[in-house]
């Protein structure tokens, strides 16, 4: 729309003095006006539409009017620099019209000239119609009715806004004029007139019981406070304006907020309206004309405000206000009525639902974490990692100390991961569960995504196919993904076939490793075939490792492969793999795994896997883009220096993509803290899989315990807040 203004400026030479008026623009202006007029008429008749039509109509009107206001404000600011006085006039008119309109709209003032009638709703639901506003007030004093509606003619609806537009427009225009005396006198006078009119028409119930002394006193105090503060902060050039503004505020407080409403006299009411408005007029008439710099800075700031305002408004209404409300209700009782202090938090923290130490110690008092295989495996891996680092250092440098390689780091990380799992598996409850989710999914999805991003680069023309496949789960809703995995995890009674993929494979493996034994569907030979194949792979890997050892090359990958294949080989050899149960008579029966219910607490991990499955694609796409952005020269230089593939990755690529990695980690972390759908669909929070985000919905909306529910929400907020603060801090650091 600013383009319209520019068009006019360039195409019409005499536009500079404000005389230009082109046909095209006139049409556009008329169309816009007609459109708005139509909307207004529509809004007046909207009650006659059906329910659906009414709602869509309101949405349409709100959107259109918001857009019009947005565009209009931008136009306004564009005009402001060209013609300051007209701009002031327009702003004054808008404020005046809106202010007077609000007064009338909220039924604070009676009708000005047009007749109006009031419909009063009595306490028991009856309505009576009254024509005189004084009567309305009088009835209010004896019968305690509620003012339902005031109906009046077309003029009665708009007479106040029109008066406001005229008065505000004149006052605003004059403040932009050159003559100082006029600039001071006119707005003040208009303020006085407006006050006289408003005060005279104010409904009885709004009349303040005030006096000239208290108004003046409050005005002086207000002026003194504001002027003092301005002086202290060094704003001496605008001291008078500030003081006048403070006086207006003070007078408003003294006239309206301090005294009782409803018992004042007409004179006091007029005075209470006139003094603040006159002071306000004086304040806007006071300043000297703006210089070019001031206007430019005003222009900049006004535009920033206009563009930010819609977003900030939405954020405030939808995010900030609910957040503050949630924090408040977390200190109130279950019906949000009485203040209970920290009771909700105490109830939450002391409940076993939230934090459950019951499995921390076993029945004989030993620490369960010490009897868990996970702990010892984790500790072993960490020690092994350090041993590898030590041995590398010793072979290279013949000194004591650690020289970490990807292998040693990887081993230590996996060890730490397992150790963490050991702790999470004995400290139960929704709070540790939430942390466990954040820990596992964030690390899992990021690590897998990183691996996919790196590996897919080597896939050549299959890269896009591979990436698309990994990314596809992102397109599935959490609920959909949960249903898919629910079906995969599902066990069936062993009398029939397994329909869940995982249980089918698991039971079949058990059957296979018992091939030939009574109860198995397999003859003996398939087991030997599998053993033979595994043995061949094992031998091949062995040769590979031996060769690498001889040539002094790395063999971490082959070793991991050998360990896995070797484990499979031994398990099948010992008839120990898969889901089976050996009965008393020695025959073998299938045994299923109830992934979602029975394998506690690791059923949590099976649920987490669903989210990892979804989030890996996200991590992969972002990290892949970052990896591709790493300058080829750096990698080339590293290659020339003789760095291996893994060294290139760990010493060149990884440091380059660290900021992106941070973004991915924090994004996933925040997403996981809020996980709700997966738990809801998979287990409904049963079987020890509840997390905070799920529990607080149940607590707030099913049990209607607002207090404890809000406290849980606040805990989630507290968990997420550090991550967000870290993110913002990083962003600001990157900018500076």
């Amino acid at each position: 729309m600013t383009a319209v203004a520019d068009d006019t400026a360039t195409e019409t030479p005499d536009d500079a003095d404000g005389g230009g008026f082109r046909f095209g623009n006139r049409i556009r202006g008329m169309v816009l006006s007609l459109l708005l007029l139509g909307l207004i008429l529509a809004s007046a008749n909207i009650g006659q539409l059906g329910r659906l039509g009414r709602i869509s109509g309101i949405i349409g009107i709100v959107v259109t009017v918001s857009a019009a206001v947005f565009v209009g404000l931008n136009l306004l600011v564009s005009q402001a620099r060209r013609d300051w006085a007209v701009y002031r006039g327009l702003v004054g008119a808008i404020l005046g019209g809106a202010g007077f309109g609000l007064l009338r709209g909220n039924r604070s003032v009676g009708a000005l000239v047009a007749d109006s009638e009031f419909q009063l709703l009595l306490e028991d639901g009856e309505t009576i119609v009254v024509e005189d506003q004084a009567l309305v007030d009088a009835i209010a004093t004896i019968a305690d009715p509620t003012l339902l509606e005031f109906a009046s003619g077309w003029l009665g609806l708009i007479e106040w806004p029109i008066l406001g537009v005229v008065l505000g427009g004149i006052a605003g225009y004059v403040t932009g004029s050159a003559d100082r005396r006029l600039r001071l006198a006119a707005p003040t006078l208009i303020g006085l007139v407006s006050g006289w009119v408003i005060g005279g028409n104010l409904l009885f119930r709004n009349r303040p019981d005030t006096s000239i002394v208290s108004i003046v006193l409050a005005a002086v105090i207000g002026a003194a406070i504001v002027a003092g503060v301005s002086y202290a902060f060094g704003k001496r050039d605008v001291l008078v304006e500030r003081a006048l503004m403070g006086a207006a505020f003070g007078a408003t407080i003294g006239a309206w907020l301090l005294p009782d409403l409803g018992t004042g006299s007409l004179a006091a009411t007029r005075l209470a309206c006139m003094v603040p408005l006159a002071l306000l007029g004086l304040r806007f008439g006071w300043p000297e004309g703006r210089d070019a710099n001031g206007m430019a800075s005003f222009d900049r700031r006004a535009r920033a405000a206009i563009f930010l305002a819609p977003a900030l408004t939405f954020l405030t209404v939808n995010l900030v206000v609910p957040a503050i409300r949630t924090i408040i209700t977390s200190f109130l009782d279950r019906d949000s009525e009485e203040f209970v202090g920290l009771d909700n938090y105490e109830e939450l923290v002391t409940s076993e639902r939230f934090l459950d130490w019951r499995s921390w110690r076993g029945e004989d008092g030993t620490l369960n974490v010490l009897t868990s295989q996970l702990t010892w495996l984790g500790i072993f891996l960490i020690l092994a990692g350090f041993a590898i680092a030590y041995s590398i250092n010793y072979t290279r440098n013949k000194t004591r100390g650690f020289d970490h390689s990807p292998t040693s780091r990887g081993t230590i990380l996996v060890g730490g991961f397992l150790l963490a799992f050991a702790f999470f598996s004995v400290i139960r409850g929704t709070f540790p569960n939430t942390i466990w989710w954040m820990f596992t999914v964030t690390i899992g999805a990021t690590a897998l995504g990183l691996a996919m991003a790196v590996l897919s680069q080597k896939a050549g023309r299959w890269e896009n196919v591979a990436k698309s496949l990994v990314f596809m789960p992102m397109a599935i809703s959490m609920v959909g993904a949960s249903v898919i995995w629910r079906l995969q995890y599902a066990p069936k009674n062993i009398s029939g076939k397994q329909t869940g993929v995982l249980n089918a494979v698991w039971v079949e493996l058990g059957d296979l490793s018992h091939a030939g034994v009574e109860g198995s569907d397999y003859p003996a030979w398939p087991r030997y075939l599998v053993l033979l194949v595994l043995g061949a792979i094992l031998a091949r890997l062995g040769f590979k490792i031996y060769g690498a050892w001889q040539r002094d090359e790395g063999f971490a990958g082959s070793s991991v492969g050998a360990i896995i294949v070797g484990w499979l080989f031994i398990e099948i050899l010992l008839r120990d793999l898969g889901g089976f149960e050996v009965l008393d008579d020695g025959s073998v029966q299938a045994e299923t795994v109830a992934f979602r219910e029975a394998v506690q607490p690791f059923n949590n991990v099976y649920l987490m896997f669903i989210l990892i499955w979804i989030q890996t694609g996200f991590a992969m796409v972002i990290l892949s883009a970052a990896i591709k952005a790493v300058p080829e020269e750096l990698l080339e230089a590293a290659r020339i220096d003789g760095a291996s593939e893994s060294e290139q990755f760990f010493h060149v690529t990884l440091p380059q993509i660290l900021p992106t990695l941070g973004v991915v980690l924090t994004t996933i972390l925040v997403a996981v803290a809020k996980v709700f759908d997966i738990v809801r669909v998979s287990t409904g929070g049963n079987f020890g899989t509840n997390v905070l985000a799920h529990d607080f919905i149940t607590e707030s909306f099913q049990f209607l315990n607002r207090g404890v529910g809000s406290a849980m929400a606040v805990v989630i907020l507290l968990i997420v807040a550090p991550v967000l603060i870290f993110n913002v801090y990083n962003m600001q650091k990157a900018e500076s």
Partner: protein
Amino acid sequence: MKSTMLKLLASLFALSLIAAACGDDDPVEDTSADSGDADALAAAEDALAAAEAAKEAAEADAEAARAEAEEAAAAAAGGDEEVNPLAGTAVRITGPVRSPDEVAGLMGALDPFAEANDMTIFYVGSADWESEINVQIEAGTPPDISIFPQPGKLADFANSGFVLPLPDDVTASVSEHWSDGAMGFGNVDGVQYGVPDKTDLKSLVWYQPARWEAAGYTVPGSLDDLWALSNQMIADGNTPWCIGIESGTATGWSFTDWVEDVMLRRHSGETYDAWTSGELPFASPEVSGVMQEILDIWNTDGMVFAQGGTIASTSFRDNGEPLVNGDCFMHRQASFFSAFFPDGTPVQDGSEGAIDVFQFPQGDTDPPIVLTAGTLVGAFTDRPEVWAVMEYFGTPEFANLRQAAQKEAKGGGDVLSGFNTANLNVDRSLWSPLEQSFLEIMANNDVRFDGSDLMPADVGAGTFWEQGTALVNGETTVEAAAAIIDASWP
């Protein structure tokens, strides 16, 4: 430039007008007017007197309209075509009833009433009704009428003043058709709030008589006989029970039903009432003993066939098929379970594989008490058409029409409709012989409502389900579970 000014003026005009139109119905503040505008005050009193007179006249009109509405409601089934005060009105109903067959039944009963009165009745069924009704009430936009599957929830809403008490005439006309016991579920502290519209019989065991005969089993007469028979079946190499308690976010309710049924057989009705009202804690020997008894039975080797591997992972819906296939001999579930048998399952026709039921055997209580559940309707708004519909919900006409429509939706003939009612004056010939026996059992025995539905939601739809599931899944002990449930009682 002038043209842009014109546009600005237009938009500014709009803004001020909207501001004028934006005002809300602000309530008038309480004022004590010492300010003496004597004339105005006198005039006001005149106006008020006039208003009172007008109001009385209006009230008389409203009373007359109500009376007419009631007549019309009564005449509706007959299809009287007089000038109807309900004409043109609309009533909005919400509820958890959602399956196509059930909605067909419900609408099959409501639509004729709406047509006869030239009014509109909307029904919105929701799977998430439990949460949605809370939100709607909080938001101040409740439906006119809602169908409550839990009397506890109705009582909650009644106590907080959202559900309105029935007018006396509605209560009187509804109680003509229902026993005191059934009416009592909608009664809160002596005030009637709910109209019962559907009743399910819960104390039932589904079985296949032909297979029992072949194996030489007979229907047991007492709870101990039932356990003995179960053990006999295991000894014969058969699996006695099909059990599964999974039900999405409501997982565990089947277990609570077992607890309630056995409570009624091991202890008296008074003990049951004390338990459901919170006087008798779960940790008491009575309740804990019953929970332990059930767990012991369920955990006996070979006792339970669980379609999904474990009891906790088997959906309660999945127990119909194994019973029909002969994987187990008994399944204890409410009357509505007929809807979950595979299509075409023969019922009570003497054929091999036909399904039948026997009453969950009586225990020591005398007179025998059966466990029921069901739905009640409660009203949120006070309008004549709303009360007319409320009253209609309690009539035998409603039940008959609903049964006919639901049976039709299920394929017609002598099928099990899944809709049962304890309404005393229904035309029982509309029901299949099997369901007629349900209606008779409910009419002839003392009844108790599903206990978990009577308890506050924190317990009845919360910890009782949750801890029950944990118990069945072997995660906790009865003692620990009872302590947690007792602690959650608000």
